[in-house]
């Protein structure tokens, strides 16, 4: 299966999301360290959803761009949104009592990272990792 949808409703779903992501990336043939990187990025973003929004979901699927193959993770929630995306992407900025690594950390782990947020309506994060 090339597309997996994981509801992010509770803290235990963080684990489910990263396990599904790892499985899909493994099927695609990513290396061991890439699998750890992808699973860690998913974990950080899924936890953000649990902490800041009451519910959301993650869509995991295969992406092909020319000769390249990779995984795309789309996290969407209907939470309060992010007022200042640029600030939220800075290291050390945290509103969830965490280490402030969630968004900037996940961005470092992935090849492509895009945040679209509408305050009051929710946040969508799209991140991609291409096979090396």
């Amino acid at each position, binding site marked *: 299966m090339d597309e997996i949808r994981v509801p992010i409703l509770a803290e235990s779903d963080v684990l489910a999301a990263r396990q599904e992501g790892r499985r899909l990336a493994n099927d695609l043939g990513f290396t061991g360290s890439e*699998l750890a990187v992808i699973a860690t990025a998913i974990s950080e973003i899924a*936890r953000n959803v649990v902490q800041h929004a009451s519910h959301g979901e993650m869509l995991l699927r295969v992406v092909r761009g020319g000769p390249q193959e990779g995984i795309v993770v789309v996290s969407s929630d209907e939470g309060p949104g992010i007022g200042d995306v640029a600030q939220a992407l800075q290291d050390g900025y945290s509103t969830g009592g965490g280490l402030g690594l969630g968004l900037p*950390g996940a961005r*470092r782990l992935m090849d492509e990272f895009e945040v679209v947020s509408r305050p009051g309506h929710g946040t969508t994060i799209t991140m991609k990792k291409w096979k090396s």
Partner: protein
Amino acid sequence: MGVPILKQGDHLVASIQSALSDAELLEFQDRLSEQVGEFRSRGVIIDVSAVDVLDSFATRTLRTIAFVCKLRGAETVIVGIQPDVAFAMVQLGLDLEGIATELDLERGLAHLQTVADGARTYG
């Protein structure tokens, strides 16, 4: 199932054998710090060799455990961080500064022995 914690002489050895949710990690943290008192342990080894992700929450919890145990008089060593996991931690920007890490259980026990010997010599 919770993380098994085994008493081994003056030490506690805990092996995290599967991926843990945040709630399970916090339960482990509380139980471990209680057992340090119950068994009057001087050292704690946490084996994470079966763990495939150490994200910011897991790392922060391990740091908390190590500092809480320190305040309770026990030295904590984290052993068995897998190379792929270490790679992802570095990229994410995580470290375990101030916390002892060793390659495996054997080295972890040797580390605690060295700490105990030092305490006897200089204490």
